[in-house]
């Protein structure tokens, strides 16, 4: 079954809708929040569907004010045809999310598995840990074809993040494992990282990393064994 969901109107404030592939009745009656108003998904969104043997949701229209799309998703596929709001694919465990437009902050926060592809730009804190948590992303893959903001893959323990464009400051801070690739430019990279690898086109090397052959190793201040590798930019 493929389900097509469209907003019925412009929203006064952001909507929180933890949309994940599931059966139609559950989707229709999914509790969503328009600010403090608790309401079902079908009251705010048009829901169409057709049986095609797939397990797919298509979000059509403006979803830039819709948060938590695909939260904790385990299977199936979500395609966002335009922009998506905050916390897309947070805590995701499996399945696939494709966003054709741009995405707000916290894409794949503390993700454990599955795949997220953002064809436009992503905001800050891609694959990051939530406040105070000791681990960020633990598994799965996030690909951002455009640029991403600051705080990418902080405290990441496993999985992979690929930013094809530029990223901001604090890529892989306090990283514990996994791999982050930024093909373009980034700011501060790998601060206090213990393990893992960061590949980046261009960045500011912190004064706590030392050159070792063609890579930088650190972070020395935490006796880290992380690796920063300068790679060629994408054509």
């Amino acid at each position: 079954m493929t389900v097509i969901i469209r907003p019925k109107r412009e929203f006064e404030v952001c909507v929180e809708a933890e949309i994940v592939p599931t059966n139609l009745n559950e989707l229709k009656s999914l509790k969503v929040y328009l600010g403090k108003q608790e309401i079902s998904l079908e009251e705010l969104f048009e829901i169409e569907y057709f049986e095609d043997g797939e397990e797919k949701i298509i979000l059509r229209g403006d979803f830039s004010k819709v948060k938590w799309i695909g939260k904790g998703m385990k299977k199936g596929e979500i395609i966002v045809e335009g922009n998506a709001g905050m916390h897309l694919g947070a805590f995701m465990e499996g399945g696939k999310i494709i966003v054709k437009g741009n995405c707000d902050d916290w894409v794949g926060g503390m993700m454990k598995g599955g795949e997220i592809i953002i064809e436009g730009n992503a905001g800050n804190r891609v694959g990051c840990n939530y406040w105070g948590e000791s681990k960020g992303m633990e598994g799965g893959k996030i690909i951002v074809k455009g640029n991403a903001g600051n705080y990418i893959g902080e405290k990441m323990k496993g999985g992979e993040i690929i930013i094809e464009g530029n990223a901001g400051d604090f890529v892989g801070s306090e990283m514990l494992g996994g791999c982050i690739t930024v093909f373009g430019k980034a700011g501060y990279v790998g601060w206090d990282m213990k393990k893992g690898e960061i590949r980046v086109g261009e960045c500011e090397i912190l004064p706590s990393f030392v050159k070792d052959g063609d890579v930088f190793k650190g972070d020395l201040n935490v006796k880290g064994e992380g690796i920063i590798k300068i790679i060629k930019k994408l054509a």
Partner: protein
Amino acid sequence: MTIMIKNGIVVDPTQNIDGEKMDLFIKNGKLVEESEAGKVEKVIDANGMTVVPGGIDIHAHIAGPKINAGRSMRPEDLKYVRSKSNKTRCAMGKVLLTCPAIGYEYAKMGYTTAIEPATPTIYSIHTHEELDSIPIVDKAALPLFGNWHLTFKFAAEGDVEKMKAFVAWAIDKAKGYGIKIVNPGGVEAWMYGKNVHSIHELIPGFEATPAEVLTTLMKAAVELNLPHKVHVHCNNLGVPGSAETTAETIKLAEKIGKENCLHITHVQFNSYTGDSWKNIGSGAEELSKLINSSPVTVDMGQVIFGHTTTMTADGPFEFALFKLAKTKWINKDVEIETGGGIVPITYRAKSPVNAVQWATSLEFGLLVDPDKIVVSTDYPNGGPFVEYPYIISLLMSKKLRENEVKEKNVSNYIERATSLLSLDIERSFYDIVKMTRSTPAKILGLKNKGTLRIGADADIAIYPFNCNEVRDEELLKSLERTAYTIKSGEIVVKDGEIVSDIWGKTFWVKVNSEREIIEEELNDVFKYYTVSKNNYGVKEEWIRKPEVVKV
């Protein structure tokens, strides 16, 4: 409202009542004779249920700058939702609870009084603001004395009269309930990056030793006849060999000789043998004998497996813990009176050290006379107070202890390092009521608490089980939530849910003494403060429901 509790199975050690079917009458917040009750407006059918006084927590860090800094530091703990905002407030926090959550959770498990045991006097306005935001329970705060420069001065001079005046002044400023000492001298040493390691060592910059601080303060407390005397967190806490320091501290109390002159808090944390983490052991057996034959009392400081956040005025201890745990660390050096630290920690059953800690506190719970020991976790240091039912169930059943060791896979190092597994003792429910009600009431000098005597405060817990027919497997569930909790004569919990959001009282002790004799010293010391003497401390009218205890 006049309430009759009908046909309950009553346990009240203060009246030697052990599981007798009785009726109780409540009027104007007090227990009354049937003849005085008049028209009964509400009858609670307690048939088949156990009726006891409301529980008293003698030592829980529930209010003030420390726990609040802990909350700010740990959103990952505070995100846990205990109850949503509805008729009551929303209640947040897994281990570090918000003020509404603290009041609600105590009430739900039948506790009606709790003591915040460590408030820096200069921060006491803050502590009282938080106490005033905790619903339902009665409460009090103990101001810190163990690292005050004036304490050192009067201890060095052995001047009990001046110490008495100082204690009276500071308790009045803090609107406090007694004397708390944390690692006497050690926190001052921490200002130089050090600690003190023996009670007979000189405190840096002063001519006094921790032993002199303890002794002078005990003498002052006894002479002032404080309802609760000296409440101490001993030197050398949390390290192998601390049992020896505790034994020496107990000997100081023996010299004073007055019953209840010293309460050694969270005794577990101060009762390790050995000289390194590799050969750490429990000193509970030896210390229990000493405690049972001396004028001191203790509380357990039970460790609960899982994550928690330690917090204490013991700054150097928290720094040591930070270096071990390699995690976040809050430190606060407070003017010239105290300090403090906060470090998150996880107690793991498989860790030999943590297992010893867990077993040691249970040993104390089984070996110390129930008239001398109180159930506690040193909240939140050993774990959340909501685990008291768990602790009680382990004290009451050897089988549950054995199951726990198996299920949690507790390190078998405890077989060598503690006596827990060889102890066959099972506490009776009567003993438990002592250890959670009458004993803390007696240690705190709260005459109208921990008892169901006529005239006592109508703080009552009614548990949905028959204490004469205890079954191990139902024990925990029976104690976690009350059928009813009554606070000051009002039903606040029914079937484990909060039904009425009321405010409890804050007890403080008014001491008469000649303050003039320390006026000069106070003026001198305030040159080194950053607030003026007149702005220091709390006025009674700033507290929501103050209740003065006069001595």
